[in-house]
């Protein structure tokens, strides 16, 4: 007998028989000639879309096609911060929807993704920033989302090891969302894949989409490195590569691909027990359950499809780290890497139809799409199944740029590298 459901009991039973009964987490599916839904991109969003399509929208024949191994894109290389502390009305309900889904995720998909609501603390350093954070925190509260404003003293009590006394930009307080936190990145991909697989979804790895077949202006399937796959509806969820894949159907997107770097230190005994972002430099940090300090900062700031960045940003991030937490000076950086993200023109995502019939787009997640994963999947599934936007994702339309209804949280305008 093979063990399928995960539980402590299953773990003990398998331990007694040498762990020989575990089933593959997902089948190594080979492509069928055609599906009702083909999702391009085996990242968090693509896999979640397939899962919710199958689970909540009764989707029948569903495939996720992934050019490499699932979870190898941004879902597997991000700094794992989840939060719903957004300012603008177009964003806040959506991210809160995601947060609620995170809160019940593990029981839903029977996979421990280590959703850890350890809190996200955004520090501010001057009056203008305080005003902006109060505005944001109040927006959250009006949406029924938790938010607290901490003064310097309260911050000191929570994270006493920050640099309070010798700071070029003193800490004046912070906005805390206690329900925010981190989620084990890989587990999100694997957990959704496993759950989708159990609902019959074909997860097809090592299958790169090389073309989109159009017939009479309608997308009917994808050319792949493993042959043509027909699709009733085709959904793109290929973060970082959206322009390339949409380009196969002749579309130009309001997106540039940029590299964001991330960093992990050697494992050390835990001392940072929430996520902290530094408001006077480009730096944010949390500590993984293995003990590594996971941190990051600004994007490198130029178009790139190479999953790596350069020294100036690495130095900039570490400067921010030392400015905020001078006790990590002797902790060593273990590894740094990069991920390629769709930086959209207003810093916010797109979940919408495209001008090509049968072709749907989930893109533009910038550096913030991990936290969105469950809601992104749910809303994209909703759009694919119902052909209308999910109520929490009505603002994420492609035509918002023509209308001017941009969702620009940072107020940086149409310059992706500044978002």
């Amino acid at each position, binding site marked *: 007998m093979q063990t399928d459901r995960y539980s402590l009991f299953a773990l003990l039973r398998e331990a007694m028989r040498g762990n020989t009964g575990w089933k593959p987490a997902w089948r190594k599916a080979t492509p069928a000639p055609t599906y009702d839904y083909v999702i391009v991109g085996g990242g968090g969003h693509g896999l979640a879309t397939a899962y919710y399509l199958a689970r909540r929208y009764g989707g029948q024949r569903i495939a996720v096609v992934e050019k490499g191994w699932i979870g190898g894109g941004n879902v597997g290389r991000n700094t794992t911060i989840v939060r719903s502390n957004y300012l603008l009305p177009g964003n806040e309900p959506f991210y809160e929807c995601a947060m609620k889904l995170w809160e019940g995720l593990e029981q839903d998909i029977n996979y421990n993704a280590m959703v850890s609501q350890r809190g996200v603390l955004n520090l501010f350093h001057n009056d203008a920033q305080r005003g902006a954070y109060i505005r944001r925190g109040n927006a959250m509260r009006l949406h029924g989302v938790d938010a607290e404003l901490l003064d310097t003293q309260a911050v000191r009590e929570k994270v006493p090891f920050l640099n309070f006394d010798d700071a070029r930009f003193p800490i004046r307080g912070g906005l805390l969302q206690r329900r925010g936190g981190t989620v084990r990145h890989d587990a999100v991909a694997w957990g959704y894949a496993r759950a989708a697989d159990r609902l019959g979804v074909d997860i097809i790895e090592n299958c790169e989409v090389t073309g989109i077949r159009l017939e009479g202006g309608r997308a009917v399937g994808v050319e792949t490195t493993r042959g043509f796959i027909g699709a009733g509806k085709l959904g793109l969820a290929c973060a970082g590569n959206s322009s390339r894949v949409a*380009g196969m159907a002749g579309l130009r*997107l*309001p997106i540039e691909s940029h590299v964001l770097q991330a960093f992990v230190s050697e494992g050390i005994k835990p001392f940072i027990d929430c996520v902290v972002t530094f408001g006077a430099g480009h730096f944010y940090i949390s500590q993984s359950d293995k003990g590594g300090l996971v941190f990051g900062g600004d994007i490198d700031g*130029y*178009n790139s499809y190479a999953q790596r960045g*350069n020294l100036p940003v690495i130095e900039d991030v570490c400067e921010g780290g030392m400015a905020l937490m001078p006790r990590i000076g002797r902790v060593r950086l273990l590894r740094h890497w990069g991920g390629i993200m769709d930086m959209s*023109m207003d810093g916010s995502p797109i979940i919408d139809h495209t001008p090509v019939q049968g072709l749907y787009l989930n893109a533009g997640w910038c550096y913030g799409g991990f936290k969105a994963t469950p809601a992104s999947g749910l809303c994209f599934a909703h759009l694919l199944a119902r052909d209308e936007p999910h109520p929490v994702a009505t603002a994420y339309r492609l035509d918002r740029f023509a209308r001017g209804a941009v969702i620009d949280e940072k107020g940086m305008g149409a310059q*992706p590298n500044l978002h």
Partner: protein
Amino acid sequence: MRLTCPFCGSRGVEEFTYRGDATVRRPAGEASAEAWVDYVYLRDNPAGPHQELWYHGAGCRSWLVVTRDTRTHQITEVRAARAVAQAEHKEGAA
């Protein structure tokens, strides 16, 4: 990454700021709304050689048109944006 400024020579990327696609052109006077949306928002975003604008802000303050492969970050050409624009301007005028 290093860029070779035609005026200052080879410099580290930290001296420059990035502005994006150098193939789009500001529409003339009363162009269509569509043309403006295209110019301000839509990008080819190629994987491969990319023409892009950089500003040598910590150096000679020149805007540059750089051809760089977005897959390898290798730079094949750097020209002064002003010279590129002037050449186009002349062409347009002629």
